[in-house]
């Protein structure tokens, strides 16, 4: 159990008309002077899946970070309604308001930790010069509605999956043959869907990744801002990342050695095991501590994925 409890925490209403709700957590040890905005969207638990945000905030306090965990509109104590979930529409206004609140607290160096679509919200506000690190926990790499990921994938994703099936010889079983046929059908359908469409997502310069993710990442790479991609080895989104690395993510990943991929055991997207939640907290906190030097310390070096 974390030594930090709610005593170090201050609930706050913020944003336009105080519509939003969050909890500020103060460092319990020596303060680093860094405020971390914890962004969650894709889960209706106001504290994150199995209290992920609460655990992370209290762990970060132990490590000397300030943090703000908050609810997007329509979740928890924040007013408003959820308009709907779509990879291309992250809750950006809330993310900007969260960073403004941390600035109003007098914190001059900021970081974002976003879970699922919350990661995209963090990237959307990444142009601010005082944001010095971004952690993306199981981020959505393509633009799709819930249950629509299969249709959003490019043909290449299905073909890569088919290649894996062939390598594993899983088509020897009836289930494997059905899956292989489904992949072939999905690849053909994806080719047909993308025929003649403008190259906004999944094609062109940002091939196989959403422009809303690739474009800010290119900017962060140019500025050498530390970025963490954290996935579970059972995450379907990890497959999306591996494909995007061959496409639209290739440039930023080559350009910066500060963009890091970490893969932990289990399923980070839709966490189904509390032990995975603990690993997410540990990995994120360790990365933040290593990536954001205290004022006066030399910048740490990280390896490219």
């Amino acid at each position, binding site marked *: 159990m974390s030594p930090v409890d709610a005593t170090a*925490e201050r*609930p706050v209403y913020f944003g336009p008309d105080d519509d939003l709700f969050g909890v500020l957590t103060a460092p319990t040890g020596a303060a680093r002077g860094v405020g971390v905005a914890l962004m969650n969207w894709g889960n209706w638990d*106001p504290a994150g899946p199995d209290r992920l945000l609460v655990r992370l905030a209290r762990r970060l306090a132990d490590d000397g970070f300030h943090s703000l965990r908050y609810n997007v509109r*329509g979740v928890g104590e924040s007013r408003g309604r959820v308009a709907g979930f779509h990879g291309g529409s992250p809750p950006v206004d809330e993310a900007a308001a969260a960073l403004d609140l941390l600035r109003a607290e007098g914190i001059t160096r900021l970081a974002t930790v976003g879970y699922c679509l919350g990661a995209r919200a963090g990237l959307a506000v990444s142009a601010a010069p005082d944001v010095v690190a971004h952690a993306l926990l199981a981020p959505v790499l393509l633009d799709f509605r819930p249950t629509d990921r299969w249709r959003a994938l490019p043909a290449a994703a299905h073909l890569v999956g088919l290649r894996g099936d062939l390598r594993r010889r899983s088509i020897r079983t009836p289930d494997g043959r059905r899956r292989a046929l489904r992949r072939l059908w999905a690849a053909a359908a994806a080719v047909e869907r993308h025929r003649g469409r403008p190259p906004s997502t999944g094609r062109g310069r940002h091939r196989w990744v959403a422009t809303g993710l690739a474009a800010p990442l290119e900017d962060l790479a140019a500025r050498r801002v530390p970025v963490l991609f954290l996935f579970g080895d059972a995450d379907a989104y990890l497959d999306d990342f591996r494909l995007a690395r061959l496409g639209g993510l290739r440039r930023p990943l080559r350009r910066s050695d500060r963009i890091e991929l970490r893969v932990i055991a289990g399923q980070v997207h839709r966490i189904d095991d509390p032990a995975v939640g603990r690993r997410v907290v540990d990995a994120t906190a360790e990365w933040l501590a290593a990536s954001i030097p205290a004022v006066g310390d030399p910048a740490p070096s990280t390896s490219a994925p």
Partner: protein
Amino acid sequence: MQARFATRTDRFTATTERAGFLGAPGRQVFAALTLPGTSTAAVVVCPSILHDIEHTDRREVALAHALARAGMASVRFHPRGAGHSDDLADLSLDAMREDAEAALAALREAVPDRPIAVVGVRAGGLVAARLVAGLGAAAPLVLWEPAPDARSFLKDGFRAARMTRLVGGATAEELDADRSPLERLAAGEPVALHGYRVPPALLRDEATLDAGVRAGRGAVLVVQLGPRPKLAPALRRLVDGWAAGGRDAGAVVLEHPDGWLVTASEPAHEALVEVTVGWLRDRLGGHVADAAGADPMTAGAL
């Protein structure tokens, strides 16, 4: 870091919301009070727990806002070991009742001398029934699809988790490997349910909803939400038993295709909230006209 509660007041309705922490360091409970300009009654909402929070939290918020429009103050809370509250090694119904009593005390301090009612949400019904029984007065009790006991709540959860995994493509071997979570839990083995750690103390609790309700004296309403057109047999038996014992007990079935599921937009809550507020208003008094008004959450206002 001075104030322990955040406060905001709606400029149109004069309703004040206060969210913050109750209790001593190490045992702090997160609570949210919704206080209309003038209130005729006070309502404690006992939440559900574990994975259910995803399905119920926003509905509890909607209920609090509707109660305020009907002139009833309310308090919601996160039990220790859940939500924003302090950690608790083994979340239990007894600990939840202590937290509910702390929330009730905060509500009484904010709006003294008002008649009290209690709403229990699914597993929170077990806590709500005990809280009402301890009040002494004949406090009305609303139970949103309550669990007859903790074991039933967990059993339903594990069954739903199994179905989710089946639909997600889990093999028969994978499902068989996780066949007896209740037995493993009883043996003290850590067990996860939809990604949430299930505390062993929950299973050890032998209190039943029936005993809790029978210990009280006030009217009881059971509300069921889901695709099923009839009240579940287990709940029907309970309600009939309470009515046969002379209690003012009834049930409402709200048919909805999504039931307790949450969707990509907003959990279904309108009918659930309307029935609950209307029933409480009839027993406690309140503003009739305001309760049926449009839900201002749509516009972002309270």
